[in-house]
């Protein structure tokens, strides 16, 4: 950009500046609804939440300013501190799995063969089930006395004796990852599929004419062009997983022995079991700052190095 605009700047007419101004006006007008939503329904309540985090905020009655007590208390909140590492581990694991599975599925069903729509629908259908309902459904399947899963696995020769899907920390973790993969893989598949379809067919045709193999095409053509979409998936998966609540709350209740407590479960306990809204807001603010930092980092790593 700079190479084009810097040299002839002096000769640029009023017209160009006016055009820039109209562009800014049009841009603001087009984004006005979005701005209103973000400011009124998000920024304002967020400021209120930040204010809450600086106060001792009782359920009923007047709040009293007590900063920075709520923030200091976080470091003594063992449940929350222990949950940070677990949440990070969960996020890393599921994000890799989501990306791999969803990309595999998307490449599989971007084909135009007959009947492919049925498969897309099959993979996407779990996304139609609420997260809490999915967790309960899997909870029922994981119960050896009621659910069919252990019988199926035994019949297939994959396990012998009793299965214990939720009894140990590792098993509970793996069982939850399986559930969320089932629930979200199709969702991310559609996101990636939408990105894949924005890639013009001519690009593929040119690559095929150059004699590129399937793998080369994927690595050199598809993935680079899919970068903005992959970034979107990363942002969604990382934030979604760092804020995970329902999968563990319903499926493992944070157990066994609090081994699967996520950051939001710990925050939820502050807010609605202990009714300490100030402390809960403080935890939320910390999470927010960390998440914004992580996501800006991701976007920086994915930035278009040769942008215009």
């Amino acid at each position, binding site marked *: 950009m700079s190479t084009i605009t810097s040299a002839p700047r002096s000769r640029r007419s009023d017209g160009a500046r006016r055009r820039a101004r109209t*562009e*800014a006006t*049009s*841009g603001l*007008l*087009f*984004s*006005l*609804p*979005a*701005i209103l*939503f*973000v400011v009124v*329904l998000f*920024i*304002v*309540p*967020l400021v*209120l*939440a930040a204010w*809450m985090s600086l106060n001792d905020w009782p359920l009923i009655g007047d709040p009293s300013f007590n900063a920075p007590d709520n923030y200091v208390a976080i470091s003594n909140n063992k449940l929350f501190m222990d949950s940070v590492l677990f949440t990070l581990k969960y996020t890393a694991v599921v994000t890799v799995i989501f990306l791999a599975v969803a990309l595999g599925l998307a490449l*599989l069903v971007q084909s*135009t*063969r007959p009947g492919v*729509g*049925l498969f897309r*629908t*099959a993979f*996407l*259908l*779990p*996304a*139609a*089930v*609420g997260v809490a*309902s999915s967790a309960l*459904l899997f909870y*029922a*399947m994981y119960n050896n006395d009621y659910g*069919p899963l252990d019988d199926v696995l035994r019949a297939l020769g994959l396990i012998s004796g009793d299965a214990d899907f939720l009894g140990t920390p590792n098993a509970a973790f793996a069982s939850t990852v399986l559930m969320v993969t*089932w629930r979200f893989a199709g969702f991310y598949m*559609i*996101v990636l599929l*939408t*990105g894949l*379809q*924005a890639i*013009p*067919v001519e690009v593929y045709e040119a690559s095929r004419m150059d004699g590129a193999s399937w793998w080369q095409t994927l690595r050199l053509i598809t993935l680079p062009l899919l970068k*903005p979409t992959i970034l979107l998936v990363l*942002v*969604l998966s990382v*934030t979604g997983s760092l*804020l995970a609540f329902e999968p563990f709350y319903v499926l493992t209740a944070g157990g066994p022995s609090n081994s699967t407590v996520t950051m939001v479960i710990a*925050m*939820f306990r502050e*807010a609605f079991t202990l009714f300490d809204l100030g402390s809960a*807001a403080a935890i*939320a603010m910390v999470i927010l700052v960390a998440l*914004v930092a992580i996501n800006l980092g991701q976007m920086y790593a994915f930035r278009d190095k040769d942008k215009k």
Partner: protein
Amino acid sequence: MTGNLVKRLRGVSFYSTNVVLAVLFLSPLVWSFYSSVHGPRATGGKGGFGPDNYIRLAEYGAGLGRYTWNTSVVTVLTVIGTLLVTVLGGYALARFQFPGKNLLFIGALAILMVPHPTILVPLYTMLNWVGLQNSLVSVALVLVMFQLPFGLFMMRNAFEALPKELEEAALLDGCGNLGALRRVLLPAVTPAMVTVGMFAFLASWNEFLTPLIFLTEGRNFTLPIALVSLRSGEMGTVDLGALQAGIVVAAIPCLLMFTLLQRHYVRGFTAGAVRG
């Protein structure tokens, strides 16, 4: 001859992979459907199959019709609102330079990064001040807000992927920005719009926490709240028959919608050809 064989083999492996995966993805839902019509609570103690779980669900509280209507209102408002805001906003983010542009994008993305319960408490207080509590409209407004990060990101990507020449041609033809958007660009970003709309649909159709917090009267409740109420019992017990029937009932509209929207994903390919 060999080419044909390779093609046939590829077809076989394509379909068998897909079928195996589809079975894996669908089996929990199939089991859910099976259990919803089988067992003592489905039949009232008799053997075989019975519709009791569905009958209980249909008659629960203010009735299945009422809850479905409420959910539909929220869903329709959310989908329309999300598309309106994100198409305009995504276009602006992709095509215009304006002050605060990056701030808007980051601000919208930050919506993803706040635990919902945190933001719902002050939002509830705020909406209370302006007398918008207990209304389906306010639920939809909040849900549109929650959809913004995904929608804006998606639409921005979609508009950025379009060649600039496309709208320049339209602008030269005398279209205004809005006209160019409507006539030329919208058809080209249809797959993205379908995805954004579909996810807004899924999210609002299944949303539980927002309506639960904002609606204070039972007759305004949405289907997910009613389903959770119906299934939850004392001491952590769950009416699994109601859960499974609820999963089936809530999934049917989604199934219909996916099937209807399928063709838009195929159209994305042909849209690419037009550009050449």
